[in-house]
């Protein structure tokens, strides 16, 4: 193959203002992190609530949580994004609609759509992990918690969830990484995150290979750092004498 690699491209001017191509990548990475972190916080909270709901006695609450999970995990992520960005705003009450479509700057409305989309999609997956984490605990644990006089709420808060979350740190980690990778769908509704900036660089400079190589490296390093961070967390909360913890 005859291709002239030019790694200096990232330090060359984009022709727009005084920006160099590397600036685009930095700004893209910023948006990627902003989208993923915000969506993750919401997904973790909502997913935990839903996961707990699925394990509660009674019929109504578990059924609501189950319906949620089935809806959000059986529709492709991209379809959900387009729904949130193109369809749902048209059904908002008039003032909200005007605010979303006209008052907000386009980047902000795209940001809101993609955060809502990723948060709700990922919450369904977090829910399932929280549920399995709780169900993996011996049944006697909730019996013992109730027997000492804990309410249902205290039983979850002091006994079940602290154990369940420790068990599910590995699958939660991969969900955490997924949300960073999935955030690239935002490029399809015009949010200039990492992938969108990469495509733009490729088009402006014609250095397609360099642009995508750098994007690959950035995503890879980002996710590897997150993984390292999560395994530190896992080590930190390990219970002595249990689950492979130090004796």
């Amino acid at each position, binding site marked *: 193959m005859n291709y002239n690699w030019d790694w200096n491209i990232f330090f060359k001017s984009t022709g727009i203002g005084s920006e160099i191509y590397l600036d685009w990548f930095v700004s893209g990475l910023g948006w990627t992190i902003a989208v993923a972190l915000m969506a993750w916080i919401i997904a973790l909270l909502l997913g935990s609530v839903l996961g707990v709901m699925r394990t509660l006695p009674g019929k109504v609450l578990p059924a609501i949580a189950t319906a949620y999970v089935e809806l959000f995990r059986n529709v492709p992520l991209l379809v959900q994004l387009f729904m949130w960005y193109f369809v749902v705003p048209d059904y908002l009450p008039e003032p909200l609609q005007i605010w979303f479509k006209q008052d907000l700057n386009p980047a902000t409305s795209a940001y809101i759509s993609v955060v809502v989309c990723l948060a709700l999609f990922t919450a369904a997956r977090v829910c399932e992990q929280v549920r399995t984490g709780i169900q993996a605990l*011996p049944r*006697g*644990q909730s*019996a*013992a*918690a*109730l*027997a*000492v*006089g*804990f*309410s249902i709420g*205290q039983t979850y808060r*002091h*006994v079940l969830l*602290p*154990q369940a979350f*420790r068990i599910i740190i590995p699958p939660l980690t991969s969900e955490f990484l997924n949300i960073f990778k999935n955030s690239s769908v935002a490029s399809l509704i015009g949010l200039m995150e990492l992938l969108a900036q990469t495509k733009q660089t490729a088009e402006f400079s014609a250095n397609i290979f360099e642009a995508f190589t750098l994007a690959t490296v950035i995503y890879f390093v980002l996710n590897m750092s997150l993984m390292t961070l999560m395994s530190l967390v896992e080590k930190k909360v390990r*219970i*002595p*004498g*249990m689950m492979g*913890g130090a*004796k």
Partner: protein
Amino acid sequence: MSMIEIKNVSKWYGDFQVLTDCTTDVKKGEVVVVCGPSGSGKSTLIKTVNALEPFQKGDIIVDGISVGDPKTDLPKLRARIGMVFQNFELFPHLSITENLTIAQQRVLGRSKDEAMQKGMHYLDRVGLKAQANKFPGQLSGGQQQRVAIARALAMDPIAMLFDEPTSALDPEMVNEVLDVMVELAHEGMTMMCVTHEMGFARKVANRVIFMDRGAIVEDCEKEEFFGNIDARSERARQFLSKILAH
């Protein structure tokens, strides 16, 4: 005075009846041993006393309070009844100290110092003061069960329920747990124990209940139960001959 009064309790899982018209009582300071073959409903019966298992018919009165009444504050009632489980069920993510104090603080509203003092007192009584800062997973089964007994006692219970407290233990650890239970019995604790330890029953029980297929078949004084074998039902005689054979 009856501390625990079980009146005509029946329970079904769907169509399958697990408890049939069970009636008995445990008086204050009395030690009642419940025995019977596996699947006879003894564990289910003892768990109905603190409403860990719901029942569909009859009622249970604990210290004057109805367990079956939907208006009863169950957490409050349960906090007054100590329970010890077959598999210990200490909270593995909490240290021994925290296991002993968390319910005292969160349920009874005791201060940290008070809970700590009480917890340590009972930990010392079961001979495990040196293990206070360890986690449950770092203790042997017998030690964990003794901590579990201390955890229940720290709540100042009016009665203690034991659900096969020694059947998950290695044989060499059974006695250290039984010793604690015997001591408790001698101190006048009201106790209802599901157990196969007939030596324990002989030593400290006031009454022995024998269950089979969800029903109470025998309910009599210890001396009568062990001393007058001929008067026992055939099922009870079979059971006794099997577990007392060696």
